[in-house]
């Protein structure tokens, strides 16, 4: 699919973040992997992307015409929602249910707030129009579609809204999409320019609010993402740069430009999923099937899991408090990062977060106007960060201002020295990070001691060994290029089309004919979509799964169904039900083998395997691994500790904590009691002496 592979061997993954565009370049001829960073260009991110590729080509010596595949992670969809840069849209619903989008599920999150900030309503009430029709739960028609009303008064009202994008979400359309399809066909004829998204195609699953929310997000993003992809395509071709472009979806799989333009809601959590993909790849390379991946940046701490070598997926996520019911990498995010602000409240209590200095003004140390001390400032005061070697020396940190703020805002109110105040801030932070990780595992019935920790993100390395110690985790992995790890993960992605259909049925042999028909339908659609993206039959894989529950429950578990043949038989169904009971027991501590089990939604992941070129270990830089000594405040006293250069480490170097390891975009602290050395895939692996702390 990518032209003659010998001529265009280079594979590039690009992860466009808020500040930096991260690149990873893989040359399968040598197995070499290179990392590059360039500033993001928010007004048109494709500009920074192309700039970064050019810079990398020059730096690492390849021709643009040699790039065969560009794997592209983007926050363009997420940012458009968060910043409300969305076109005016309309929503067509079953008449009498126009307000479901605004009523939401009506549960509140802020328990005590007297002036609450409710979730945004992206399509206001005057642009939500009722279609005269009604389906029953079994898919039969109660009220036929009133086409005269649709093309008469309703169309006139739609025209008056000035909507550029239209979402259609009719009750029970996931069972019988006929009315939604007819609405689309009539609109396409009457108003050919409108971008129409059907709920039965975007998220054909039961629960009208979640389906509406997902479809509305999709509809509003169609013009946004389409415009971006058109700009990107215009930039391609220059200098022979003509790769196949694939976009990273929230589920971690990639999709074609065409699929992304039709279903842009699938891109909504594209960025963070790359880190989890990298964790899955490293789990394999390191022989550590159970990894808890923690990504700590300026404002957030993201926790995800690789268990038995597989990334955990969920069937619903959210953006700006709005549900997005599409498969996503499972992630727990807490608002704790380098920018979290420390302060002392009226009762004399030290608090860290939830307020954050963010990127602007940022920590006091950045000298951009921040006046309240942050976690990053605490790291600087303690000597864990080098004021002259931040971001590889490209940014000077302001130590005097940082110490002064630490003294005034935290140390003096608590009657402590600035160093002890800073150490206290880290103690509180690390305990909170540890609690987040513990809960992520605990809620699945898992024990931290069975996991190794994978630490990445700009701030992760400063905290990882301390957090691991909090949890009783005895091994911490610092991957190579931790600042561009998401892009690294994207290098090894596959094409994935997730297709789902809700059809409530008891999980009993009598349902087999209906199940077989539904599976055949989903499989046919999956294979067709892969073929459209040019995937050869030998590279196509279809994985089935089902959302299941006990009768009477109001939520489902996603159960993989690897054993199912083209036509499911009683034995395959029995295995599915047995797996459901087993999963229920692990998650919820009990299973009821006598209770009736229901299938609510059937799923197919249609996977187009991309080649997985082998990766060679990078050669160490030809300079001493030990850069020197630095004063570090640790355990209540200043002491001299060794500082290492990550890029110059060889497999013979053994780092005894307390020590500091620096690289271009990150600093790692190997705490007292830990010993670190290089392992497979260039990862630095720290182990607690004596195993589990």
């Amino acid at each position, binding site marked *: 699919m990518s032209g003659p592979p010998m001529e265009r061997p280079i594979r590039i993954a690009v992860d466009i973040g808020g500040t930096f565009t991260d690149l990873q370049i893989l040359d399968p001829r040598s197995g070499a992997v290179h990392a590059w960073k360039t500033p993001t260009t928010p007004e048109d991110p494709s500009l920074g992307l192309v700039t970064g590729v050019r810079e990398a080509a020059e730096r690492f010596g390849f021709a643009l015409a040699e790039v065969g595949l560009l794997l592209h992670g983007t926050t363009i969809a997420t940012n458009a929602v968060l910043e409300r840069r969305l076109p005016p849209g309309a929503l067509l619903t079953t008449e009498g249910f126009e307000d479901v989008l605004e009523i939401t599920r009506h549960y509140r999150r802020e328990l005590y707030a007297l002036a609450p900030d409710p979730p945004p309503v992206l399509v206001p009430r005057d642009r939500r129009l009722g279609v005269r029709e009604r389906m029953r739960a079994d898919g039969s028609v109660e009220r036929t579609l009133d086409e005269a009303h649709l093309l008469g008064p309703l169309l006139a009202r739609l025209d008056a809204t000035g909507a550029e994008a239209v979402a259609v979400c009719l009750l029970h359309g996931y069972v019988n999409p006929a009315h939604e399809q007819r609405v689309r066909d009539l609109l396409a004829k009457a108003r050919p320019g409108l971008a129409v998204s059907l709920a039965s195609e975007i998220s054909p699953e039961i629960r009208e609010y979640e389906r509406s929310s997902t479809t509305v997000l999709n509809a509003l993003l169609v013009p946004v993402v389409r415009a971006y992809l058109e700009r990107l395509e215009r930039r391609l071709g220059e200098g022979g740069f003509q790769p196949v472009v694939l976009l990273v979806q929230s589920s971690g799989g990639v999709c074609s430009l065409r699929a992304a333009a039709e279903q842009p809601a699938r891109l909504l959590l594209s960025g963070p999923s790359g880190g989890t993909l990298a964790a899955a790849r490293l789990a394999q390379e390191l022989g550590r099937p159970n990894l808890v991946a923690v990504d700590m940046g300026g404002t957030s701490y993201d926790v995800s899991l690789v268990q038995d070598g597989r990334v955990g997926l969920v069937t619903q996520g959210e953006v700006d408090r709005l549900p997005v019911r599409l498969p996503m990498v499972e992630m727990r995010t807490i608002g704790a990062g380098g920018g979290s602000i420390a302060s002392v409240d009226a009762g004399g209590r030290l608090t860290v977060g939830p307020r954050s200095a963010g990127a602007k003004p940022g920590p006091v140390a950045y000298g951009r106007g921040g006046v309240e001390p942050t976690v990053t400032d605490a790291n600087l005061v303690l000597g864990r960060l080098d004021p002259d070697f931040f971001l590889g020396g490209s940014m000077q940190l302001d130590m005097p201002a940082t110490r002064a703020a630490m003294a005034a805002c935290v140390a003096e109110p608590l009657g402590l020295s600035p160093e002890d105040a800073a150490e206290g801030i880290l103690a509180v932070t690390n305990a909170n990070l540890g*609690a987040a990780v513990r809960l992520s595992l605990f809620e699945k019935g898992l024990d931290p001691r069975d996991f190794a920790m994978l630490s990445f993100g700009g701030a992760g390395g400063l905290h990882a060994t301390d957090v691991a110690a909090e949890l009783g985790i005895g091994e911490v992995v610092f991957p190579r290029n931790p600042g561009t790890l998401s892009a690294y993960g994207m290098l090894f992605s596959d094409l994935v089309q997730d297709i789902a259909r809700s059809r409530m049925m008891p999980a009993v042999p009598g349902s087999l004919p209906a199940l077989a028909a539904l599976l055949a339908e989903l499989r046919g659609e999956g294979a067709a979509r892969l073929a459209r993206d040019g995937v050869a039959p030998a590279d196509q894989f279809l994985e089935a799964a089902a959302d299941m529950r006990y009768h009477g429950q109001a939520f489902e578990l996603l159960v993989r169904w690897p054993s199912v043949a083209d036509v499911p038989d009683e034995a395959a169904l029995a295995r599915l039900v047995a797996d459901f009971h087993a999963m229920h027991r692990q998650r919820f501590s009990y299973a009821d083998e006598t209770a009736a089990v229901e299938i609510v939604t059937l799923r197919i992941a249609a996977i187009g395997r991309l080649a997985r070129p082998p990766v060679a270990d990078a050669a160490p830089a030809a300079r001493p691994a030990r850069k020197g000594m630095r004063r570090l405040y640790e355990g209540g006293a200043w002491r001299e500790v060794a500082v290492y250069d990550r890029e110059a480490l060889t497999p013979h170097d053994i780092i005894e904590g307390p020590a500091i390891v620096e690289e271009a975009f990150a600093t790692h602290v190997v705490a007292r009691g830990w010993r670190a050395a290089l392992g497979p895939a260039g990862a630095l692996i720290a182990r607690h002496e004596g195993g589990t702390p």
Partner: protein
Amino acid sequence: MTAPGDRLGPIEVEVIRNALTAAAAEMDVTVWRTSRSTIVRELLDYSTAIFDAEGNNVAQSARIPSHLNSMGHGLRELLARHVDAAAWGPEDVVITNDPYCGGQHLPDILAFKPVEHEGRRIAFVGTLCHHLDMGGLAAGSYAATATEIFQEGLRIPPVKLVEGGRVNAGVWAMIRQNVRKPDLVMGDLQSQLASLDVGAAALRRLAARYGTEAMLEAGRRILDMSEATMRAAIRRMPDGVYEFEDFLDDDGIVLDQPIRLHVKLTIAGDGIEVDLSGCAKQVAGPVNATLASSQAAVMFAVMSAADDPALAANAGCYRPVRVIAPEGLVVNARHPAPVAHRIAVGHRLLNALFGALHQAVPERIPAAYYGNSYVCTFQTVAEDGSREVLVEIEIGGSGAHPAKDGVNTYASGMHNNANIPVEMIESQMPLEIARYGLLPDSGGAGARRGGLGLVREWRVLSERCVLTANMDRFHHAPYGLAGGQPANRGRLLLIRDGREEPIPPKTDGLVLLRGDVVRLETSGGGGFGDPAGREAAALARDLALGYVTPAAARDVWRS
């Protein structure tokens, strides 16, 4: 980091405080993970907490405001009156659901377990779960017509369900025999026990790290700091005496007698006294509350008004607040008054408390929210006699705030729950939802408009269907403030053969027939400020969105 208690620094205190909160969260996840019934897992009607050795709440994971503080109240009641503390060992779990022994109503079972380290009691852990059923004359133990607690279900006195680490089989069987859906109820009770074990293990882990003295000292300091933060917040409120009253429509038994909730709030320096002596005498029907419920409403009001997002909710926050509530009133009912719908009293008491607080801190307090849990139960009966049950809890709009409009259909005040998807209901039982939408003109008029209530219609598709309802605000509308108008009153209607007739809002056992439609209209929130002060653009937008009809704009808003 180990430090003896007398030298415990502020850092250690904060780390221990966060660890205690994390322990409560682990207990919370355990209940969620191991419980059986929908009410626990979906409505999340449970809470977990950590207490010091005297029974003061030091950390909690409360999702439902009505649980706030009530567990600590219950535990201190047990220690003061019902359980010999010296004979309460670390492997003993005491449970009770008795509203007259520190509980709220029978479906809520409280469970507590002490935690010891090096032979000394360092803490208690506790859980509160709303159970699916505790027996009695109505399913869910929610009878609208009970006149004494004996009709409401099984009363479990404070008793050791677990003694020396072994479940008391007699107590277990006694409960099991008395409840509908025993597998689910006992499964949920089991999850409460599992949660206590998780909490106790987390506390022992902490004690092993920091030592007994440090744990005890940290507990004292945590409470002292929250008290200081709370007192600082109260000191910022102007001293004075503030009074307000609001009314419940009736108790469902005596229909022409509104129930008065009167609050006299005295702010003096850094303390608040809340005098509830002016509230109505307890009533015949199940619209009564015990002190645990009423105190939860008081604490929720004061903590919301304190307006300090960093405030750590624990027993230290309660110290500056003194509640006066003589026994025999609707806010402190005397045995054997029925109390199943104590939430109705909680909602209205909260409305009255906010009305009083508005006079002290007018810039913070919104007008009345809908103030009511719209509970209704449909039991469909098919021709073959098979039955399905649907319990719906609907909501209304939030009150207008001095700085912004109220929020349409927003779970507010003493409860917090999600709705049930239309498609789920229709897939599972012979009911059709005919309409679900915002109710125009239901928000009180004002410079700031109240949030809108909603309309929901159920159509019966089965041979027969039995309706039970318990609702309020059909006579006494949610009030406006500072010249703002009240919101609409609620309505419950039966639509049969094209004719509408009202259904009493507190109803047991109304028989519906195939084709009948039940229509609920809920209250919005009250308005804030004179409607004449509303910006023309805001009113124009309300008209464009249909939040306000042209007729109301002319007659109510006088534009």
